C-alpha cells in the first residue's frame, strides 16, 4: 500500500525548490549568454580599436616631423585594415584555435576564416555560473590586440620605411610572430603557466623587440642623432596618449572577458600604474634636466601602462604603484641609454618603453602578484614566487628570441624582393609627398 505523503515531506521538497535558484549545482551549471558581460566586451572591443585608431595613430603622428605625419597615420590605418583580414583568415585560428596534438605549439587552421564558430557559439567566461559571451566576440576582441601590436612597431622604423614593405612586414609578422606567441601564452601552448593578463609578452615585448630589430636593420634616419628632429605637433601626441589611456581600460579590464570584480580591480591597478609611471618619468626629467615635459609625462604613462599590463590580473593596488614607479624610472634610463649611448634610432622609442616595460612587468607580477595583497582572487594553490618567476623568465626569453629571429628573417626576405627603405631624396622630401602624394597641412 502506498504510504500517504506527509506535509513535512512536501515542505522539505518545497524548501529545496525554493533554494534551487540560489545555490549552484556541483554539476556543470547551465551555460547562458550573459548580456552584462557581453555588453562590457562589446565596449572593450571598441575601446581597444580606439587605442590604435585614433589613439596610437595620433600619438605617433605628433612625434614625427610634419613632412611625415601622414605616413604614420597611413601606416596605423592600413595595418588596422590589413591585420583585421589576416586575423580573421588565419591569425585567430593559429593563435587561439585548438591545435590538437600540436596544441603546445600552435592552434592549427581548423578555425581559419571563422570556420567552426557559429552565430550561436558561446564562450563560457565564468565556469562557476555558466556566464558566457558570444564566441565571435572573443575573435573580434582579440583581433584588436593583433592590430595594435604591429602598429606599435612602426615607431621603430618611422620616417624612412617604404609603405609597401611595411604592409608585407605587418601581415607576415602577425602570422609568424604574434599569432604563435599568442598561442603559447594565451592559447594553451607551452608557456601557458605565464601570468600575463593582457599582453606583456604577446604585445609589448614582441613589439619592442621587433621595433629594435627593424630600427637596426633599416639604419638611422638621415641626420640622426645630430639634426634636431623635434615632434611636430605635441597636441596630437597628448590627445593620442590620452586616448591610449582610456582605451587601455578596455585592453586590460576586458582581458578577463567579464564585467565583475576582477575587471574593476584590473581597472584600478591599470590606472594606478599609469599615473605612477607618468609621475615617475616626469620627476626623473625634472631632476635630471631641470624641467618636467609633457612628452615625458605621457611617455611615462605609456611605460606605466605597458608594464602593468601583464600584471594587472594579479597584483593589488600597492603592487601596481610600485610597478608604475619602477616603470617610469627604468624605462626612462633605458630610453637615454638606447639613444645616447647605443645611438640606435628606434625613432619613437618602442623598445625602451614597451619592450623594457613589458619585461619588467612580466617579471614583477610574479613578485607582487603573490605579495602586497596581490593574487586578487585569493587563489588557493598559489605557486611560490620563485616557481612563478621561472615561468615568467622562460616566457620572456622565448618571446625575445623568437621575435628577434623571425623579425630578422622576415625583414631580410622583404629587403631582397622589395627593399626596406625609401631613397635618400624621398627621405629628404618626406614620405607624405613621396609615398602618398599628399601633404598633411595646408593652413
Amino acid at each position, binding site marked *: 500500500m502506498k504510504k500517504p505523503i506527509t506535509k513535512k515531506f512536501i515542505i522539505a521538497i518545497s524548501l529545496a525548490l525554493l533554494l534551487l535558484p540560489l545555490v549552484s549545482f556541483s554539476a556543470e551549471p547551465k551555460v547562458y549568454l550573459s548580456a552584462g558581460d557581453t555588453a562590457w566586451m562589446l565596449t572593450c572591443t571598441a575601446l581597444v580599436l580606439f587605442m590604435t585608431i585614433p589613439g596610437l595613430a595620433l600619438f605617433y603622428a605628433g612625434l614625427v616631423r610634419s613632412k611625415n605625419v601622414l605616413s604614420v597615420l597611413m601606416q596605423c590605418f592600413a595595418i588596422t585594415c590589413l591585420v583585421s583580414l589576416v586575423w580573421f583568415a588565419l591569425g585567430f585560428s593559429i593563435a587561439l584555435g585548438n591545435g590538437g596534438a600540436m596544441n603546445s605549439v600552435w592552434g592549427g587552421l581548423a578555425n581559419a576564416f571563422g570556420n567552426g564558430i557559429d552565430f550561436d557559439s558561446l564562450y563560457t567566461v565564468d565556469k562557476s555560473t555558466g556566464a558566457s559571451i558570444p564566441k565571435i566576440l572573443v575573435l573580434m576582441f582579440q583581433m584588436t590586440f593583433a592590430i595594435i601590436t604591429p602598429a606599435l612597431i612602426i615607431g621603430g622604423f618611422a620616417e624612412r620605411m617604404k609603405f609597401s614593405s611595411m604592409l608585407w612586414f605587418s601581415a607576415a609578422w602577425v602570422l609568424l610572430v604574434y599569432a604563435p606567441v599568442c598561442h603559447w601564452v594565451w592559447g594553451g601552448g607551452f608557456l601557458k603557466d605565464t601570468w600575463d593578463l593582457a599582453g606583456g609578452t604577446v604585445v609589448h615585448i614582441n613589439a619592442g623587440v621587433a621595433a629594435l630589430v627593424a630600427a637596426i636593420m633599416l639604419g638611422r634616419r638621415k641626420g640622426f642623432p645630430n639634426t*634636431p*628632429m*623635434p*615632434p611636430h605637433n605635441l597636441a596630437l601626441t597628448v590627445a593620442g596618449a590620452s586616448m591610449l589611456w582610456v582605451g587601455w581600460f578596455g585592453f586590460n579590464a576586458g582581458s578577463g572577458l567579464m564585467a565583475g570584480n576582477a575587471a574593476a580591480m584590473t581597472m584600478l591597478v591599470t590606472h594606478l600604474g599609469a599615473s605612477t609611471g607618468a609621475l615617475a618619468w616626469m620627476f626623473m*626629467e625634472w631632476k635630471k634636466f631641470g*624641467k618636467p615635459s609633457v*612628452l*615625458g609625462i605621457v611617455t611615462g604613462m605609456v611605460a606605466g601602462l605597458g608594464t602593468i599590463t601583464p600584471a594587472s590580473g594579479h597584483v593589488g593596488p600597492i603592487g601596481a604603484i610600485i610597478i608604475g614607479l619602477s616603470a617610469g624610472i627604468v624605462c626612462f634610463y633605458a630610453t637615454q641609454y638606447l639613444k*645616447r649611448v647605443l645611438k640606435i634610432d628606434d625613432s619613437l*622609442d618602442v623598445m625602451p618603453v614597451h619592450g623594457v616595460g613589458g619585461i619588467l612587468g612580466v617579471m614583477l607580477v610574479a613578485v607582487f602578484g603573490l605579495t602586497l595583497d596581490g593574487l586578487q582572487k585569493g587563489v588557493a594553490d598559489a605557486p611560490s614566487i620563485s616557481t612563478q618567476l621561472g615561468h615568467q623568465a622562460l616566457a620572456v626569453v622565448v618571446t625575445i628570441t623568437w621575435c628577434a629571429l623571425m623579425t630578422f628573417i622576415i625583414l631580410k626576405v622583404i629587403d631582397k624582393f622589395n627593399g626596406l627603405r625609401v631613397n635618400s631624396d624621398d627621405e629628404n622630401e618626406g614620405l607624405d609627398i613621396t609615398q602618398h602624394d599628399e601633404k598633411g597641412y595646408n593652413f
Partner: protein
Amino acid sequence: MKLVIAIIKPFKLDDVREALGEVGVQGITVTEVKGYGRQKGHTELYRGAEYVIEFIPKVKLEIATNADQVDKVIETICHSAGTGQIGDGKIFVVDLEQATRIRTGETGSDAL
C-alpha cells in the same frame, strides 16, 4: 623714398605698430621670421634628446616711407621695440626707387 626693414621681438609688435601710427606711418607689412644672432636660443628636450634651437622667432617689419621720414621712423622703432636686452633686433634701410598703389595706379609718395 626708402624701405625700412626692422627685425624685432614678436611681443613688441603691437607697441611698435602703435608708436609708428602716432608718427604718421600709415602702412606696414609684417612677416614672421626666425633670427640667428647673438641672442642664444633656448634648449628643447624630447625624451632626453636635447636640441639647442638656434633660430629665435622674430618679426620683420617693412615700411616704405619718404626719405625725410626715415630718421623719425628709425627712432620710433628703437624706442618702442627696445627692451635693452640682447636680441632686440636691427633696422636696415635700402633705397626705394618706385612705389605703386595697385588699386589706383598712383606712384611715388602718393602710393604709400
